[in-house]
């Protein structure tokens, strides 16, 4: 039992909403970084830092993989993509608990500010299927996120960071 049980309608509505949002933001020029002056910084979520282990190593993949954690990292103000931002990722997966060191790994963003890290399938724990991400190093303010999966069957999760200077 979840608060959110996806079905065909929710997917269609979500898809239409996303398409609409992309169209409006694209048309208004928000996707052009130089003009995106009003993007607000991503706030740390409650519980985001739970079971965080500082300094998790940069890895090519966490465990056996099969699930993709993806996202972007931009800076507040002009929304310019940040290259080389270190994002740490951990979750309760088919291969281990959140507290297990093997469930943790980090990756760096590319020149376009995107990151992608393969990891084991996230499974529901503590009542919700969720992941943890942290931006915890460098010249911007630390942010801890705890995004929910819309369905425990999802095989990817996309998370966007907007960072503000520390």
């Amino acid at each position, binding site marked *: 039992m979840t608060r959110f049980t996806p079905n065909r309608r929710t997917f269609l509505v979500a898809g239409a909403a996303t398409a609409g949002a992309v169209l409006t933001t694209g048309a208004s020029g928000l996707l052009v970084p130089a003009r995106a002056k009003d993007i607000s910084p991503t706030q740390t979520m*409650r*519980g985001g830092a739970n079971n965080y282990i500082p300094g998790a190593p940069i890895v090519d993949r966490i465990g056996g993989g099969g699930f993709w954690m993806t996202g972007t990292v931009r800076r507040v103000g002009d929304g310019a993509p940040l290259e080389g931002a270190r994002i740490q990722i951990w979750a309760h*997966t088919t291969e281990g608990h959140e507290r297990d060191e093997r469930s943790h790994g980090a990756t760096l963003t590319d020149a376009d500010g995107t990151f992608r890290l393969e990891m084991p399938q996230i499974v529901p724990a503590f009542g919700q299927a969720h992941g943890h991400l942290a931006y915890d190093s460098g010249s911007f303010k630390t942010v801890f996120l705890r995004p929910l999966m819309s369905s425990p069957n999802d095989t990817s999760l996309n998370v966007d960071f907007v960072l503000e200077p520390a």
Partner: protein
Amino acid sequence: MPSLRAILIWGALGLAIAVPLAIAATSPLLAWRQPVYIASGLAGVLAMTLLLVQPLLAGGYLPGVSMRRGRAVHRWVGVTLVTAVVAHVAGLWVTSPPDVIDALLFRSPTPFSAWGVVAMWALFAAALLALLRQRLHIRPRIWRLGHSALVAVVVAGSVVHAMLIDGTMGTLSKAALCALAFAATIKVLVDLRAWTLLIRRRA
């Protein structure tokens, strides 16, 4: 020779308890959980089933169990219920301390945690009231109103807590168990007219 009615009532109660426990005990999620996490989840499911048993005992609805004997069993089931809830929280604490600390401090991101924690404290208070009732010579009016009000919070909080969780219980069996526990609690509160002493005093 028990009557058909007795067989049906006991059979239904047995199923209402056994089916959710069996489904939770065979959930695919268990494959990715440590023993202590599995045990704490099952302790929570057990506690939920006892929330159905308690009002049935208090109201004397179970065939073959007299009101007097039912009350005695109600006390022991109450002790088991408190133990199960303590085991539930303790096991979750061992599994992920920060998540349980967040829940107990009402700062958890998961909406179901607060309902569970409120139900837990109401359960402890209801049990404490029962424990101190004779020692402190608590008047019947206070006792019955207090215990009834507290267990109403326990059942309502636990039902919302359970229904919001994506866990090992099957959705259908969980909903059925919650509905039965809720209905049984309402019935016994109405039948025993938990509030009459309050009204009589005012009249």
